[in-house]
C-alpha cells in the first residue's frame, strides 16, 4: 500500500482529501494542530483505513525536517505528497504588517519549498512520485485584501511548475489544485452562524454554479492528480471552482 503525506490535514480540504485517499493509501496527517491531526487519524482508522498523525509548522525548516523523519520512521516510504497547509488573513493592503506578510509567505511558499525539498530525494531515488500543491483561483485573479495570500498562491503555482520541469526526468509529477470558494473552516473563520449563512449565500451567488464547493469536491481532484489516471499531466493547475475563473 502506498503512502501519502498531507499537510494541513486536520481540517477542511486536507481532511477531506485524507479521508478520500485513505480508501487506497496509508495517510500521514500532518498539521500544526496535533490534537486535530490525531482526531483525524483516529477517524480514518475507525473506518478501517491506515493513518498516523504528526505535528508540524510547515513555515519552519527544522520542524518540517523533523516531521518527515518522524513520518518515515513510522510509515516508511512516502510516495505522494499533498502540500496543502495554508492560512488566509484578510486585511486592507496598508494594514498588512511585515509579520502578517511573513507568516503568509512562509506558511505557503516556504511550506511547499521545505516539504518538497525534504521528500523529493526519496522520490528521485525511486524514480517515481506525485506531488500536488494547493493554489487558489486567486493565484490567477488576485484578491482585494488578500494581497499576501494571492502573492503566496501565485508563488506556489510558479514553484510547482518549476518542480514539474526539474523533476519530470525522475518520473515525478507536480501539479496544483486551485480551488474556488470552498466550505471550509478557513473560509468560515471568525463568522457567526448568521454571518456565515449570509456569506455562503452571497458568495455562492457570485459563482456560475450558484454555490460554494465542498471539500470533497477538491479531494476528488487531488486524488485524480496523484493517481496514475493523470500520468501525463504535470505542471498544471486544475480549478474546482464552479466556473468562477476560466483561463
Amino acid at each position, binding site marked *: 500500500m502506498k503512502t501519502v503525506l498531507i499537510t494541513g490535514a486536520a481540517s477542511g480540504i486536507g481532511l477531506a482529501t485524507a479521508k478520500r485517499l485513505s480508501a487506497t493509501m496509508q495517510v500521514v496527517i500532518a498539521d500544526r494542530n496535533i490534537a486535530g491531526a490525531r482526531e483525524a487519524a483516529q477517524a480514518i482508522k475507525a473506518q478501517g483505513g491506515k493513518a498516523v498523525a504528526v505535528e508540524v509548522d510547515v513555515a519552519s525548516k527544522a520542524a518540517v525536517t523533523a516531521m518527515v523523519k518522524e513520518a518515515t520512521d513510522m510509515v516508511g516510504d512516502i510516495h505522494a505528497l499533498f502540500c496543502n497547509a495554508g492560512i488566509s488573513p484578510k486585511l486592507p493592503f496598508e494594514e498588512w504588517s511585515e509579520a502578517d506578510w511573513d507568516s503568509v509567505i512562509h506558511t505557503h511558499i516556504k511550506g511547499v519549498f521545505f516539504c518538497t525539498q525534504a521528500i523529493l530525494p526519496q522520490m528521485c531515488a525511486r524514480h517515481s512520485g506525485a506531488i500536488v500543491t494547493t493554489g487558489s483561483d486567486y493565484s490567477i485573479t488576485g484578491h482585494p485584501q488578500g494581497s499576501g495570500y494571492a502573492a503566496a498562491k501565485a508563488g506556489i503555482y510558479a514553484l510547482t511548475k518549476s518542480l*514539474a520541469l526539474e523533476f519530470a526526468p525522475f518520473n515525478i509529477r507536480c501539479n496544483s489544485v486551485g480551488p474556488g470558494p470552498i466550505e471550509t473552516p478557513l473560509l468560515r473563520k471568525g463568522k457567526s452562524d448568521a454571518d456565515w449563512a449570509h456569506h455562503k449565500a452571497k458568495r455562492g451567488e457570485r459563482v*456560475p*454554479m450558484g454555490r460554494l464547493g465542498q471539500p470533497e469536491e477538491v479531494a476528488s481532484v487531488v486524488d485524480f492528480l496523484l493517481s496514475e489516471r493523470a500520468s501525463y499531466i504535470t505542471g498544471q493547475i486544475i480549478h474546482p471552482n464552479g466556473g468562477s475563473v476560466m483561463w
Partner: protein
Amino acid sequence: MSKGTVVLTGIGSGIGFETARCLLSEGYRILGFDIARGRFDELSGDCTFVELDVRDFQRQKEAIESEARSHIMTGLVACAGIIQRRPYLELDEETFDRHLDINLKGPFFACQAMLPILRAQGKGSIVLFASSIARTGSATGAHYAATKGGILGLARTLALETARDGIRVNVVSPGVTDTPQPRGHATDEELYAKAAKVPLGRIGQPQDMAQAVTFLLSDDSSYITGQDLRITGGAGLF
C-alpha cells in the same frame, strides 16, 4: 447498471476510440459517430455506431434525439477533428472552411442538440477537445489553431450559460499524441522524436486523454466547469 449514454464523435480511431473503450469499461453506454467505422468493431460493451459526418448537423441532432427517447443521456465527448497542415499563405478558403466546420461548428451544433436534453434531466457533462496548439500556436497550423482556440471560447461560454442547470462543460487539450492524426504529416520516427521536447520524456497516449475525459464525465469533477485540462507531459507551461 448503466451510467447512461455518452455521445462520442470521432469514435473510429485515436483518442475517440480509446475514450470509448475507457468509458465502456466504466459502465457507460456509447453512441458513437464517425465518417467510417474504423476500429469501432474492436469495442466490446453497450455501444452503437452511426455513420455520419459531424458537418451533417441535422443528422447528428436526429441521432442524439433518437437516442434520448430511450436512454438517460450522461454527456457528450466531441473528439472528431482534422488537421491538414498548410503554410499560412497557401491556405485556401476551402481548407479553412473544412477545419472550421469539422473542428468547431460540428461540436457547436452537437452541444446545441444535447443541451435541451441535459437541461431537462438537470444533469450532464460535456467535454470538448481543443489542443495545446490553441494556446501555443503552431507554424503551418493557423487554421487549426483558430478552430481550437474557438473551442475554448465556446466551452467557457456554454459553461456559464448552463452552470445553474447542473451541466458542466470542460475541455481537454492534448499535446502531441500517438494517434493516426499527426501521421498525416509526420512519420513514426518524426512523431516519437517529439518526446525529446516533452519534460516527461514521451509523447501522449490516447489512454492519457481517455482517463481525463472519464474524470470530467464523473462526479469526481462535480465542481469543475469551464476548465481546460492540458495534458502535455509538462510541455508548454505558462
